[in-house]
């Protein structure tokens, strides 16, 4: 009988099985090791399977809190992990993860991938996640002593790979495929992502902040990297002028598409009209939601005056509840060398670094200090586009400079209060 009857159940069924992946790794590595290949951890994949079986029986994790492990010169990029079954299953006593910074857009050459595989076959469990939720390549499971050589070997590859972020650091930025494949992309997501990643290598590798900080780049409001919900700093492509319409192509669609019900009626602001012959879009009322463009990619495309909207503060619910990022900059041009966006990023990071509380995400801090203060920090003035609606209470602050001179103000000054 199998040693792992419970997890074996997950080999069944049509969907690709992660259990098969683990077994395949175990089998290959055991075999190659027995053939004399220099693999440091040929038993680890098998060990994981056994540990998992125990978890499946016990209905709980068998991983302990991680200790601090890393590679020389880095403060992050590795998640330390030890098993509480270390004595029983020494193969997985250590099971640290390395986060490897993926190429922007998750595009790979096979050469690059093979290099990665070689390193992890040698120094690790041979198991990966392609990819982690933040976007990194995840190398699952190695021992403390192999972290440094893994890292060094990664750096020596013909196409070298560096670590990604972890801990209270800037995290690995990610980007949708953007201009590489998508006709909707309003700016070069891959280049911006790459450039920011390179600019902030230090912030990425050496945790120095109150908490984590994530940047994601989506080429249009469809937001295919889910930046609104998952990034402290979401850069989402958009445009300012009219949607470009190809009338001929519209006519093609009209031959079979129910434009009235599937496009016109679904426009959130009723900015489109279709009289059976011509499609008209009222640019002043279009909120660039993408729906009509999504429906008719051959006929419609984003306008020509392109750039991005920046939303700040997106995050999961720990501690003060989930936040979908808040629009802070309705429109910004995205142009190499990206100075403007970097200035905003720098101002944001500096402010948060200085005034953020321990484990306070930037969104929570904006909530605590007020959006108004944040706008000041990034040097932007108020814009109605950053709110869904104006405030519902009259509890406003006024700056001293905004007050009229008066005896009362004089008295406040005299008393040292102003």
């Amino acid at each position, binding site marked *: 009988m199998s040693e792992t009857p419970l997890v074996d159940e997950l080999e069944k069924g049509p969907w690709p099985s992660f259990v098969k992946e683990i077994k395949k790794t175990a089998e290959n590595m055991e075999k190659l090791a027995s053939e004399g290949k220099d693999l440091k951890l040929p038993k680890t994949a098998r060990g994981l399977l056994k540990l998992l079986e125990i978890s499946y029986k016990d209905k709980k994790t068998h991983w302990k809190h991680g200790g601090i492990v890393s590679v020389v010169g880095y403060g992050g990029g590795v998640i330390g992990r030890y098993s509480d079954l270390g004595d029983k299953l020494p193969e997985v006593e250590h099971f640290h993860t390395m986060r490897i910074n993926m190429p922007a857009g998750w595009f790979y050459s096979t050469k690059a991938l093979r290099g990665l595989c070689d390193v992890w076959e040698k120094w690790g469990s041979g198991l990966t996640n392609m990819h982690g939720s933040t976007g990194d390549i995840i190398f699952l499971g190695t021992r403390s002593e192999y972290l440094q050589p893994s890292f060094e070997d990664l750096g020596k590859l013909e196409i070298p790979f560096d670590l990604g972020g972890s801990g209270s650091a800037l995290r690995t930025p990610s980007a949708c495929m953007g201009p590489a494949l998508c006709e909707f992309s309003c700016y070069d997501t891959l280049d911006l992502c790459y450039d920011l990643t390179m600019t902030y290598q230090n912030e990425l590798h050496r945790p120095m902040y109150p908490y984590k900080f994530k940047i994601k780049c989506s080429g249009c409001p469809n937001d295919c990297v889910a930046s609104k919900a998952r990034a402290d700093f979401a850069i989402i492509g958009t445009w300012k002028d009219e949607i470009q319409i190809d009338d001929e192509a519209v006519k093609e669609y009209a031959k079979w598409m129910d434009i009235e019900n599937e496009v016109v009626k679904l426009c959130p602001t009723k900015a489109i009209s279709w009289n059976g012959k011509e499609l008209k879009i009222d640019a002043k009322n279009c909120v660039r939601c993408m729906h009509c463009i999504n429906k008719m990619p051959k006929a419609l495309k984003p306008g020509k005056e392109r750039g991005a909207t920046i939303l700040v503060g997106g995050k999961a619910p720990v501690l003060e509840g989930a936040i979908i990022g808040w629009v802070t900059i309705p429109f910004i041009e995205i142009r190499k060398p990206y100075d403007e966006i970097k200035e905003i990023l720098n101002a944001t990071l500096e402010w948060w670094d200085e005034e953020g509380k321990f484990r306070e995400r930037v969104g929570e801090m904006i909530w605590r200090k007020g959006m108004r203060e944040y706008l000041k920090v990034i040097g932007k003035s108020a814009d109605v586009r950053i709110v869904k609606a104006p405030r519902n209470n009259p509890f*406003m602050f006024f700056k001293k400079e905004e007050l009229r001179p008066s005896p009362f103000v004089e008295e406040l000054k005299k008393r040292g209060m102003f």
Partner: protein
Amino acid sequence: MVKTDFGPPKYDLMLHPVIKKNYGKWKFHEVVKPGVIRRVAESGDEIYVVRFGSPRLLSVYTIRELCDIADKYSDGYLRWTSRNNVEFFVTSKEKVDALIKEVEEKIGFPCGGTWDAVTGKYGLSNIVHTQGWIHCHTPAIDASGIVKAVMDELYEYFIDHKLPAMCRISLACCANMCGAVHASDIAIVGIHRTPPLPDDDAIRRTCEIPSTVAACPTGALKPDMKAKTIKVDVEKCMYCGNCYTMCPGMPLFDPENDGAAIMVGGKISDARRMPELSKVVVPWVPNEPPRWPTLVKYIKQILETWANNARKHERLIEWVDRIGWERFFELTGLEFTDHLIDDYRITPYIYGELRTSTQFRW
């Protein structure tokens, strides 16, 4: 012994006989003309309800005159509406115009303030308001005076049905919002703009320091135990006046800096759209007694911009739902300043007010 706890007179003592007879058995109503509503009962009985504006602050001598008129036209009965208008009940159509004439001439109250949902033509009603300088100790503005100035300007809308939908205007003279401005189509609210200047002596004499300190929603107050007084962190103060409510030793009145904020877009009825709180659109207008011209101008401007642009039955917030706040500011010519961005952390609507979408208009 003096009788206590006997409560208000029972309502049924107060009902016109036709109303009493047809109580709960009204069939329909019909707006005959501005100020006049015909109500028809299942029994076939009918009654004309005739509405007049009032300043709310009434002399007992005026009330007696109203009574005289009610005795003459209305069988000795009358009522006030929930927005301080006076209503008479006339059983025959012929008497309506005479009644109107007599009220207008003798008392000077205009007939109007109604609306007709059926045709989608709405009059402007009275402004719900509060005490202001007439009676209260915390106001940042007067109440009755501003209401008078605004209603003078908007008079034509009261006496006629010229608006596309209901529009409720309210005023409260301080952030306590006794006038319920927090849910009105257009609202004026008195605000202070300076922190309290602790009067150490008064604090010692009249205040309970811990409860005053605790009353500050933003934590701007600290007890100064030694000096037996209270210290204000002016950076944290947003001038709500709550500490002054608790303790007279915390005055924050500054005639030059008190004034009004304007809010819009509140709604209470469930008709079509769910209720909504009002939103601040003008952070501050100075006190300009006796007729507050700047404030009046803003209110008129907002009302008329809405009225000229809204569709039938589209209340202010429904109009904004359709056109967007971007367009609201553009059309009204108001400026969106950073004061209007919610940063009151204690009210949890803040999340709801910030935009979590790239959807907006240029």
